[in-house]
């Protein structure tokens, strides 16, 4: 409780209320006002989530900060919120990124400013809702509702092919979600009328049903992660989205899918998860290796980072489905780190794009000569993306690889190839963009980053380094919940 208010509800509704306030400022005449309100809302939104960290009991297995109210009595739907070690960090991560995105869009977004800022604030609240929901219908409502602002963000402020990307993004995710809805209804009827996610965890389900339920959840979550072969919406959406949209997509949206595996698929259908683990691992490894190679051939910077995201998320799903503590914890750390790193990289590309209006690697070269400070930050994030020890990227990858060695040497071998490919595609892109002689007059006219941009990058750089050098504050939150989850998943529910 802060000031007598429940923390999670405030974390969800405060950004949404500020979003509505921002919308109320109306047209672009009031753009400065809209920006200030949005920033205030975003920063407040982050501050109110801090008690989640400080008040969190690391040893407790149960859900914390629980709120429970009746919602739709007829179907036993509750407004039931709560977080454990797995979900808490993502609420923080999400709220942390909202102010950064608002600042990143401060000058760049000139048309329909209020709507842009409001969309991000509202989405931030909805995503917090996804991570905090313990009722399946509540989860579904937040899960679907967040599509609406993202659809608008891509479609209105995106690049030339934005309409195609927005519609593809929406329909892909909707397909998965609708199948998940059927699975949830099935579980509701089987459980004798409960939409409590935690009840589903305890429920015995026969094997065939478990497999079908697993597949339904798989379609929903794998699209969001995204896993090979349903990843194709991601490069389109990323490339066409405005910078802020790409950041939120990469840093937050993808995590929602992976989170779903931990909250739904594995604990609800543990036997099916074990049975289908081979498939999941295979798809993950394909994502790591094949998509890593695909990233190598990209000529568009945003696309390259998008494919790199798919490859990194392959690591995450791999970590989940080897069912050991190293793997799952490493995957979760990788998710958080990837949030920071990919967010930062998209912001870097955004900085270049705002100045030159091109995302093509070939249009750059020698940027270090004109933007030295920027080049230094970019360097750090590129290194983190390739998993350099000392940066946050290393911790998760290392743990997942350790976990994978325990499971099967060849999994680890293939997974570790990402250290090579990741370094190759990231650093090669970095070299072509930043080093060498000044390529053209656009690059020659570049101005280095402003104080506003420096602030954003400095915050991210500190986080990336901090998490890389001292990951304990992150990992200690995870321990209890991950161990509970693994114990639970190891028990058969047949």
């Amino acid at each position, binding site marked *: 409780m802060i000031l007598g208010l429940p923390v999670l509800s405030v974390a969800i509704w405060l950004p949404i209320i500020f979003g509505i306030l921002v919308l109320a400022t109306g047209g672009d005449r009031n753009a400065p006002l809209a920006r200030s309100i949005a920033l205030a809302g975003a920063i407040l939104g982050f501050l109110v989530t801090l008690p989640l960290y400080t008040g969190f009991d690391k040893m407790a297995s149960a859900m914390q900060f629980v709120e429970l109210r009746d919602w*739709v*009595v007829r*179907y036993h739907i509750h407004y039931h919120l709560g977080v454990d070690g797995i979900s808490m960090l993502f609420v923080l991560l999400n709220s942390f990124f909202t102010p950064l995105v608002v600042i990143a869009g401060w000058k760049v977004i000139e048309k329909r400013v209020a709507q842009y800022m409001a969309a991000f604030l509202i989405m931030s609240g909805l995503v917090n809702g996804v991570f905090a929901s313990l009722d399946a219908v509540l989860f579904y409502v937040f899960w*679907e509702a967040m599509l609406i602002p993202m659809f608008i963000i891509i479609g209105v402020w995106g690049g030339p092919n934005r309409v195609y990307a927005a*519609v593809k993004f929406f329909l892909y995710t*909707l397909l998965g979600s609708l199948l998940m809805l059927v699975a949830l*209804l099935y579980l509701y*009827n089987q459980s004798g009328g409960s939409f409590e996610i935690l009840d589903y965890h305890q429920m015995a389900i026969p094997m065939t049903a478990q497999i079908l339920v697993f597949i339904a959840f798989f379609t929903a979550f794998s699209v969001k992660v995204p896993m090979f072969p349903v990843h194709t919406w991601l490069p389109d959406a990323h490339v066409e989205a405005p910078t802020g949209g790409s950041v939120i997509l990469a840093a937050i949206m993808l995590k929602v899918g992976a989170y779903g595996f931990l909250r739904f698929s594995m604990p609800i259908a543990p036997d099916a998860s074990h049975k289908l683990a081979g498939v999941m691992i295979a798809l993950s490894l394909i994502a790591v290796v094949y998509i890593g190679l695909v990233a190598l051939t990209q000529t568009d910077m945003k696309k390259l980072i998008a494919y790199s995201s798919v490859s990194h998320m392959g690591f995450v799903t791999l970590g989940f489905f080897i069912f050991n503590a190293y793997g799952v914890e490493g995957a979760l750390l990788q998710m958080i780190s990837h949030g920071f790193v990919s967010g930062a990289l998209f912001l870097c590309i955004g900085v270049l794009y705002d100045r030159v209006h091109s995302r093509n690697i070939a249009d750059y070269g020698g940027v270090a000569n004109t933007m030295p400070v920027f080049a230094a930050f970019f360097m750090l994030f590129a290194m983190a993306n390739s998993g350099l020890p000392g940066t946050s990227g290393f911790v998760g990858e290392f743990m997942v690889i350790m976990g994978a060695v325990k499971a099967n040497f060849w999994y680890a071998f293939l997974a570790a190839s990402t250290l090579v490919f990741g370094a190759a595609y990231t650093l090669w892109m970095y070299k072509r963009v930043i080093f060498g002689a000044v390529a053209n007059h656009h690059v020659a006219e570049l101005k280095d980053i402003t104080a506003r941009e420096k602030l954003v990058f400095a915050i991210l750089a500190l986080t990336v380094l901090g998490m890389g050098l001292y990951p304990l504050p992150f990992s200690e939150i995870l321990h209890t919940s991950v161990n509970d989850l693994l114990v639970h998943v190891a028990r058969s529910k047949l």
Partner: protein
Amino acid sequence: MNFLATLYPAYAEIFLLVMVCTILIVDLFVADPNKTVTYLMVQLTLLGCSLITVGTHQHVVAHLFHNMFVDDLMSDVLKLLSYLAISMMLVYSRSYLLVRGLFTGEFMVLALFALLGMMVMISASHFLTLYLGLELLSLSLYAMVALQRDSALATEAAMKYFILGALASGLLLYGMSMLYGATGTLEVNAVSDAITRGVPNTQLLVFGLVFIVSGLAFKLGAVPFHMWVPDVYHGAPTAMTMLIGTAPKLAAFAFVMRLLVESMQPLMVHWSGMLLILAVLSMAVGNISAIAQTNLKRMLAYSTIAHMGFLLLGVLSGGVEGYGSAMFYAVVYVLMSLGGFGMIMLLSREGFEADTLNDFKGLNQRSPWLAFIMLLLMFSMAGVPPTVGFYAKFAVLQSVVMTGHIPLAVAAVLFSLIGAFYYLRIVKLMYFDAPESHVPISIQPDSGLLISANGLAVLALGIMPGTLMSVCAVSVRQSLLLVH
């Protein structure tokens, strides 16, 4: 007991009939071309009807006129919603029809007659009453579609509507006559009893059922009896389209309940199979054809077909769960389509119909608020939370899954995915595209307020759907108690 007191449950119908006749006469003396007096009288009549319906509500089911008329909770709820729908229709269409010279006394009187027909249908507990109500409704609608007599499109639509509607009525009557032959009665409850006791000629019974279901499917616009829907929706002036597409669906739901559930529940094995085919075909054809439309009214027509398919899914699942969800779906559907057609009329002006998809281009730049309302309506039709359309689909799917038809539920969600595409397209046009026209949008304060309330209601009911869902479930439960 004096005679008038025995008529207590039918006071609303009687009051409406008296008022319609009064308005018909008063209107002759209204010189004002804006027909303000008539309009206000109509709205007051609707208000009066609501008060009477609420005031005469009883906790028990009352039968009247030798079991030809029934007053139960379901009928009261559906009637109240019908008044609301008609009243909203009149508010939306007033300025639209005024500039087209169609806002006449006849229009309003016909609308009220249509309402009376719906009320009779909703409260019918005898096949003849049902039929009378249906015909009163249909005849008023035929005339209303044809009201714009110098428009070739409207005349064609009226002709099609009339011929196909008459055919459907014929089918229905034929089915009823066979039912009469098999059971010897036309009373809803008596038919149910007779079937339960067993009839000598089941074949005749099922044969009659086939005709009745076909007639119903015609009226609902379910595939393969849907051909009239797009043409009539498109051809009729938008105000009439709104009338056809909204309140009568509530009456049609009552029609399905009285005919199939209350009188032929024992034959459910037979009719649920027929409804299954109708439902799946409607969702498939409705959703897929809607993609190809460039005219918004036609698109909404196909979307109606798809929605009716979804509603039938609830009916065929049966039980309080199924019928309750179907009723909820019908109510939600009416609310959404009132908004959808209302938006078309708001954006239209003298000599210009905003009924093609392109007319919605860049609406966000011309009027962000209207675009936002339309966005809510479209996402609600697509069934995306937090709008109420989600809960409508949710309730129906829950009843389908509960009866174990999981493949059917999967099919239904796949078709809604297809449906989402064309609703998204409207949002895309409004938000992503540049406007084609920069004519300022001028809105009357009353209809502007109403469309805002309508859109926000879609959102508010989506956040708090509990009460309405319970009301639907309770009303249906009372009707089902009559059967068993």
